[in-house]
């Protein structure tokens, strides 16, 4: 049987799993005595959620909060350490997850198994579809028509799926990473009171994301686009009952973070919607294939404007400057969520959008639209990388690194004559960034903390996590032969080849920064001074929080190993010409006109040298323990820059200020205008003309219903008056 014909099954499988969990296993779980744990958790705020030792979980579901425990600990000596211990407790909020002793109820486990099986089948089917497309690269199957919304006045609103080479790749990325994340979550979320809810929301996300990538027209794409926003909102706010972290903590707080994520991306969607409307009004179609030709007959300036507006949606969803502020906060969600949604798939939806519409960007629209994409991408890459240098929250660094890498993808879409370069980086990034996040989750799971300043030397305790993390770190730094090298080098090189020297400069410098901050992260977490292999493995600075670091259970390390294997295999396949093959594949089997892969030329050598240099610089500071970073940060020039970067350029503060002044100012103005001006006029005229003051006083006698008749009589009088008036005219 042709797997391409069954493509509708790919979203249908997780949807079916979602419905089964919602209708069967979750209600059963509640009936079979989930209520006790639930009530207890509700009382304790986050009772039953302590990170850390198994002994603590023996307190039972109604145990006290992490705050209480931190106070029971022996008071430490220096103010510095006391502060650190407080932060430990605070970080616990962000890191708070199932803990080790927590057990998952039988029904909960069944829910996750249903989800995993559905995702496994969907992933297998996706791979079959991809293989089918690789076999026959020129294949263009017709759109799958699911059903019609309606057709009004010749305008069609129809729900269609479209599968082509690009979709096939995205399907594998989405279902593959989603499957591994589902598996991983069995370990990571074990014992959480919202265990089944977590899997439902994860499945909801997967369905929405699949709708997004399968869309044949803007209507379906927008539906998926908004639904992934919903799942993102729900999953960021998964631990909605947590207490807020105290001021100064780098760990984001779920309730405001989920709100911020949804509203910020909506702001981008506003532009996106206007862009869709411009295209719609001019071509009267939503269908992507039809648009490719239809847009050629429309005024070029109009299309250019529309495509830039459509890109606004991508800016919001893919967290590009200036709408990137939501993504670091989105790390408030559980770490598997960060890996799946906020690193590998959803945030890449913007890149997918531009790639999907690439024919319009490249042909019908003016060159300005792709230039905007490229400059925004390259600037964001640089901008986010500078912030990543200073963050201490392990997930915070990874969040900024995601923003930065997404910027690379947009730059890649802009500088090449094909979408293959940007999409290839999306492809490799999805795996190595999911690996990085899942690895960081493994660390957080082990030590119940996300502050890197309290980590160090963890490689000895969790060798699998450390080794796979190192592979991903090398990959993102662009070191051959790992996958990131093959996808990043062409972006930088093509920028130079196409004389986009600004983009070249920004992306090249970002490559240096990337290598630096990623190895800073790796060494601060897993290595350190005095460790084996020049400080890359273990180290004297041991983990200083509480909890006993150890390797995670197999459900958690297996996905790490799989992702690391993918990263290495893609890297090695690069030598066999995977890049060219990939570009050719996306090109519909036709050969591409240029070298989409790195060649052994000066540009590549410079690129790799810059990355190695970044690693060495990071190693001197965090592997050797040279004190230059501290000196630099303390110096009169370094200090203000460090402060600026550490506070993320104060953009959050600026936005908050603007919202407070502009939006709330206007809103308060409107509310006050209603209350005093309009109602003032209404009440005033009512009093004077109708003498309502007298009437209201009389109504206070309480016999209100007597007025019913009076009103009707009044209405009749008015009727009569107008009747006479109109009659008099004639």
């Amino acid at each position, binding site marked *: 049987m042709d797997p391409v014909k069954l493509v509708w099954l790919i979203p249908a499988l997780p949807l079916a799993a979602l419905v089964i969990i919602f209708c069967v296993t979750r209600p059963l779980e509640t009936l079979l005595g989930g209520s006790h744990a*639930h009530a207890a958790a509700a009382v304790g705020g986050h009772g039953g959620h302590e990170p850390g030792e198994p002994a603590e979980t023996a307190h039972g579901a109604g145990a006290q909060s992490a705050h209480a425990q931190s106070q029971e600990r022996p008071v430490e000596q220096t103010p510095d350490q006391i502060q650190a211990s407080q932060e430990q407790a605070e970080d616990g909020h962000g890191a708070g997850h199932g803990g080790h002793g927590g057990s998952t109820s039988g029904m909960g486990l069944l829910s996750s198994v249903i989800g995993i099986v559905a995702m496994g089948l969907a992933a297998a089917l996706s791979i079959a579809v991809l293989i089918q497309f690789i076999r026959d690269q020129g294949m263009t199957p017709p759109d799958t028509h699911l059903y*019609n919304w309606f057709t009004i006045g010749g305008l069609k609103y129809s729900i269609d799926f479209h599968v082509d080479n690009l979709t096939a790749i995205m399907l594998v990325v989405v279902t593959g990473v989603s499957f591994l994340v589902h598996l991983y979550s069995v370990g990571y979320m074990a014992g959480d009171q919202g265990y089944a809810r977590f899997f439902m929301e994860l499945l909801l996300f997967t369905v929405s994301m699949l709708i997004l990538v399968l869309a044949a027209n803007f209507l379906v794409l927008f539906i998926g686009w908004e639904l992934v926003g919903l799942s993102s909102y729900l999953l960021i706010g998964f631990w909605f*009952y947590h207490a807020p972290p105290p001021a100064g903590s780098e760990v984001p707080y779920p309730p405001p973070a*989920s*709100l911020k994520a949804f509203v910020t991306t909506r702001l981008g969607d506003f532009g996106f*919607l206007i862009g869709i*409307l411009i295209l719609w009004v001019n071509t009267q179609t939503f269908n992507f294939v039809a648009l490719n030709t239809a847009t050629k007959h429309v005024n070029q300036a109009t299309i250019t404007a529309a495509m830039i507006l459509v890109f606004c949606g991508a800016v919001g969803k893919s967290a590009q400057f200036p709408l990137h502020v939501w993504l670091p906060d989105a790390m408030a969600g559980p770490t598997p969520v960060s890996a799946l949604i906020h690193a590998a798939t959803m945030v890449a939806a913007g890149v997918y959008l531009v790639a999907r519409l690439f024919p319009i960007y490249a042909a019908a629209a003016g060159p300005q639209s792709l230039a905007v994409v490229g400059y925004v991408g390259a600037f964001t890459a640089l901008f986010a990388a500078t912030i990543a240098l200073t963050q201490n929250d392990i997930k915070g660094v990874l969040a900024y690194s995601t923003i930065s890498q997404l910027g690379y993808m947009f730059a890649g879409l802009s500088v090449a004559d094909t979408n293959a370069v940007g999409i290839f980086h999306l492809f490799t990034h999805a795996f190595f960034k999911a690996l990085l996040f899942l690895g960081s989750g493994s660390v957080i799971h082990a030590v119940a903390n996300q502050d890197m300043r309290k980590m160090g030397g963890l490689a000895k305790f969790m060798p699998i996590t450390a080794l796979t993390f190192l592979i991903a770190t090398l990959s993102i730094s662009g070191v051959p032969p790992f996958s990131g090298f093959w996808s990043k080098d062409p972006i930088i090189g093509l920028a130079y080849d196409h004389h986009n020297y600004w983009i070249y400069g920004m992306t090249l410098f970002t490559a240096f920064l990337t290598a630096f901050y990623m190895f800073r992260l790796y060494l601060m977490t897993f290595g350190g001074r005095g460790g084996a292999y020049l400080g890359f493995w273990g180290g004297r600075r041991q983990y200083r929080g509480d909890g006993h670091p150890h390797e995670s259970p197999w459900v958690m390390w297996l996905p790490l190993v799989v992702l690391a294997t993918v990263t290495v295999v893609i890297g090695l396949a690069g030598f066999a010409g995977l890049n060219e093959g990939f570009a050719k594949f996306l090109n519909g089997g036709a050969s591409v006109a240029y070298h989409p892969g790195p060649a052994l030329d000066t540009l590549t050598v410079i690129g790799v040298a810059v990355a190695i240099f970044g690693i060495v610089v990071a190693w001197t500071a965090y592997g050797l323990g040279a004190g230059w970073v501290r000196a630099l940060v303390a110096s009169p020039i370094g200090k203000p820059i460090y402060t600026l970067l550490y506070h993320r350029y104060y953009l959050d503060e600026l936005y908050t200020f603007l919202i407070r002044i502009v939006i709330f100012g206007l809103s308060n103005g409107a509310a006050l205008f209603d209350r005093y001006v309009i109602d003032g006029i209404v009440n005033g005229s009512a009093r004077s003309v109708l003498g309502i003051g007298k009437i209201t006083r009389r109504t206070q006698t309480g016999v*209100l219903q007597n007025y019913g008749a009076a009103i009707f009589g009044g*209405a009749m009088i008015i009727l009569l008056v107008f009747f006479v008036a*109109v009659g008099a005219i004639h």
Partner: protein
Amino acid sequence: MLTAIVFLPLLAGVIVLLAPERFTRWIAAGFTLVVFLLSMWLYFGLLGKGSGFGDVMHPQWSIDVPWINTNLGGFHFQVRYALGTDGLSMPMIILNGLLSFLAVIGSWRIEKRIKFYMAMLLFLEMGVMGVFASFDLFLFILFWEVELIPMFLLIGIWGGARRKYAAWKFLIYTLVGSSFTLAGIFLIYVETGATDARYQHFAGAASTLIGQLPLGAGSISLPLAVFLLLFAGFAVKIPMWPVHTWLPDAHTEAPTAVSVLLAGVLLKMGAYGLIRICLGFAPHGAQQFAPVLGVLAAINVLWGAGASLVQRDMKKMIAYSSVSHMGYVLLGVAAAAAAGTAASGFREVALTGATLQMFSHGAITGMLFFCVGVIYDKAHTREIDAFGGVASRMPVESTLYLAACFASLGLPALAGFVAEYLVFTGSFALLPGPTIAAAFGVVLTAGYLLWMFRRAFYGPLNLKWNWLTDATVREAFPLVALVVVILFVGIYPGPIVDLIRPSIHQMLTVAHAVSAR
């Protein structure tokens, strides 16, 4: 059949008043359920016959008998008892049937003078049904005024602390507005020279309304004068900025079920009048007013959204959000009426969207008010900041509340999105400026709803509310019923759009013929 739908509630109301009090709730629930089922039967009956859902010239289920026929001062005044339904009114009749039934369920725990309360609720249902089912202008305005009395009493007797102010404000606003509408009805009746006031006369003959009307020293375009007079009453009811301030007060004071009906169907009477009567019978005037109406629509959306953002009371916030959402209806109507060379398909899309928005907003806002009602009945406060972390105590209630919020902010797969998307995709071709401004309302809507939700439901539990219990089955029933409707329309809007479309098509064909003249 329509007669039964309109007058069964009246009969039920009388029975409720006469029967012993312990049966009151069951009688009311039974009758409203029957009315709702009958309204569904109207729909499925037409579906089964396969003869289409009709339009204003071809009303379905129609009944038409003479009622008042008199000559007053050389003026022939005829009122016919003409009822009928078409694609424009049937969704509203179904919605009214559904919401009235749910409102009775939602009022189960009212103790204060329950007999009189239920009777008023039933009389209200009758009035609203009459407005939507009338096919005669005089009958229409009669039902329009009749509906005021029960509403006035429901707010004034069972309302909150400032109920008297709110009730009077509602009444005066509406009466002042409807007096203009009445004048407009007389004007159109006289000017077209019709011998009776059945809709068919004006829907087809609207083109005869041309020329100038002498006014003081100058003159005013006659169609515009007719349009504005008729519109005055509808604008108050919708409500349109700047005559909207009665709504937040009325909602804040009204009991839950009354708020549901007020937002769910009473506002729709204004929108229905605007589409059926203003646009249908005075298309030329509508066209002249459309640019202004478009701007007013955008103001409605943004003003309402902005005011929602700063409200402290949940109900007042949702009331303002109604102002905002009714702006999309206005936008759709304005676009349908606007002059322009854009393809006629866009007008049809915009007006279908406006009509669907009436239905969607009724279901969604009804659900939101029920959600507030559930929590208010327990906590006796609606102040957003007084809560905190309540989701931990009320998982079912908070899940449904969140679903209603997302429906309201236009999440795809829920009813609000379909309507808003239709309005935007239609109106952008004709009124790009107001459409862009109104589309920004989508961002603000997400902001105020989710911000409210975050403050009231997320975060650590405010221990003051540790005793709160989740929604009971009876409380959850209306919410679940509405969420099913919202999901169905959101995922598969085909059936309801097919119902609406013929009426819209006929109306725009007439309007187009008029404006082309």
